[in-house]
């Protein structure tokens, strides 16, 4: 079952006409969170605090001083810092950790008068594709509760797909926004590497991680992206590239747009209904005047290997800081400092996190560094070059977001490689630093949503937002 979601655009009009208030909107979402508790989307819900924020926004609306996101109710993945709130990363090791400051994305959204309703569940340290790796229990897919919502930003995705927030912030290291968006039938956007500040984001894999929005419609994602983007002195990897008006880019006109499709890549292991959605999307784009071009991505067979070598290497390094000394979980049985480190880490981290730390430590260890890590860095350049070559002839690349629709709980937990392969269409954008968007387009025979992904040139989010917007309009007709 899936309800019709309220978009921020609809709420905004209601706020402007006076037919609702921000406070009533928040109360409605708090009610949904309460009735949807079994979905386990939230790790923390801000009751009185968000109502206070909502009343303050209502006063601003009355005074005519409200910002561009006034009354937008936002859920935040629990890997992003909010001052005086816990940030657990869904890990036992950070179960009681309290943030000392707001992440830059939080500051920017707050300054635009968005309000924050709570922190959302996720795979521990954003490692996973199903949200089954949370130390606080799995998240259910609201479309079919026997299935995973995708991951790692499963809670943020379900907060939006389950009608518990207008939008949500997620993070995407290898597909962690786009893949759950596809599994739950909403819009998910991973911006270009460097587009959005990561100050206040707990680091997983620093050369991949990006923060991006989940939304019920493309227009809402565009609005949020506009506010959150731009250089930040506190994040030296944020780029000094001007931020365009993404909403103005949503013309719905795709005439002349050149869309590349890597048909040979799509030949393998694709669920038939997903292939049907791709064909239908291509047909619709043609009807709108877009040119469909076949493109080659010669190194696409190597994306999973490359990604998991580099990602685990970076993660093993980033997660070395959790040692039980200055913050986080501390083992009670350690007799000396050395035991404190080992026992705190071994008791505090979950199984998948430890597996990835081990893999990452192995590929970085003496004797294997060149064979795995450096090799993967080289192949990463080849994969990026494939996309740069393609973008000489096309404006964006279309693929499905995932090879299958949402899978069942437990289906892939025993076979980590099988789980990793579910990221096959999404990791390329992270390897190459490109923006990607997943937009719902069609359903399979069991009513499970299918996502179509557009990947664009670096810093050309406008192009993929408009292409996704066009498909969204087609689906509504």
């Amino acid at each position: 079952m899936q309800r019709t979601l309220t978009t921020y655009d609809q709420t905004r009009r209601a706020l402007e006409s006076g037919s609702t208030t921000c406070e009533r909107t928040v109360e409605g979402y708090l009610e949904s969170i309460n009735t949807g508790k079994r979905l386990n989307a939230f790790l923390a819900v801000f009751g009185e605090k968000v109502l206070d924020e909502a009343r303050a926004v209502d006063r601003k609306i009355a005074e005519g001083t409200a910002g561009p996101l006034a009354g937008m109710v936002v859920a935040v993945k629990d890997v992003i810092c909010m001052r005086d709130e816990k940030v657990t990363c869904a890990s036992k090791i950070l179960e009681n950790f309290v943030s000392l400051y707001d992440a830059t994305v939080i500051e920017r959204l707050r300054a635009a008068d968005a309000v924050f309703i709570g922190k959302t569940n996720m795979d521990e340290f954003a490692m996973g594709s199903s949200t089954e790796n949370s130390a606080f229990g799995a998240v259910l897919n609201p479309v079919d509760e026997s299935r995973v919502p995708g991951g790692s930003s499963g809670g943020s995705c379900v907060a939006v797909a389950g009608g518990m927030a207008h939008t949500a912030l997620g993070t995407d290291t290898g597909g962690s926004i786009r893949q759950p968006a596809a599994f739950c039938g909403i819009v998910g956007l991973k911006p270009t590497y460097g587009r959005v500040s990561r100050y206040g984001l707990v680091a997983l894999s620093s050369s991949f991680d990006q923060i991006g929005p989940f939304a019920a419609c493309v227009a809402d994602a565009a609005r949020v992206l506009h506010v959150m983007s731009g250089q930040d002195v506190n994040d030296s990897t944020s780029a000094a590239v001007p931020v365009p008006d993404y909403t103005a880019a949503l013309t719905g006109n795709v005439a002349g747009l050149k869309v590349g499709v890597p048909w040979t890549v799509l030949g393998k292991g694709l669920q038939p209904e997903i292939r049907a959605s791709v064909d239908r999307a291509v047909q619709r784009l043609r009807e709108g005047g877009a040119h469909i071009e076949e493109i080659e991505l010669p190194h696409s067979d190597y994306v999973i290997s490359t990604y998991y070598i580099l990602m685990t290497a970076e993660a093993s390094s980033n997660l070395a800081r959790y040692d039980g000394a200055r913050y986080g979980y501390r083992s009670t049985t350690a007799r000396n400092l050395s035991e404190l480190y080992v026992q705190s880490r071994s008791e505090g981290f979950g199984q998948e996190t430890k597996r990835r730390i081990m893999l990452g430590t192995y590929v970085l260890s003496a004797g294997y560094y060149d064979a795995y890590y450096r090799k993967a860095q080289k192949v990463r350049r080849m994969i990026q070059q494939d996309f740069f070559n393609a973008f000489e002839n096309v404006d964006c690349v279309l693929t499905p977001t995932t090879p299958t629709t949402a899978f069942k709980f437990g289906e892939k937990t025993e076979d980590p490689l099988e789980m990793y392969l579910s990221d096959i269409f999404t990791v390329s954008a992270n390897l190459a630093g490109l923006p990607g968007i997943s937009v719902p387009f069609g359903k399979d025979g069991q009513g499970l949503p299918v996502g179509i992904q557009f990947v664009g040139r670096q810093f050309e989010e406008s192009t993929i937002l408009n292409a996704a917007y066009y498909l969204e309009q087609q689906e509504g007709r």
Partner: protein
Amino acid sequence: MAVTLKDVEHVALLAQLSFSEEEKARLTAQLNQILEYMEQLNSLDTADVEPLSHVIELSNVFRTDVNRPSLPREAILRNAPVRTEKFFKVPKVIGDR
């Protein structure tokens, strides 16, 4: 390059993690399966390819070197598992080994 149980124990030491015998056996099997898949990269000739470590061409990002307020000590110590008045407290560094 098959991973042995001994390799797993060595890497666990580097990573400061400990595992039960059962976990070690499972990890050995899983790492072998994953690394065997990753061996596919060896089929690519990368002799003339520069490693890519940063996907947008950024170099040497500087900010002006001025004092900015830092967090007060109380805030820093707020998340300490065990503390004294001014310090983080940990078990003795020089052990009995």
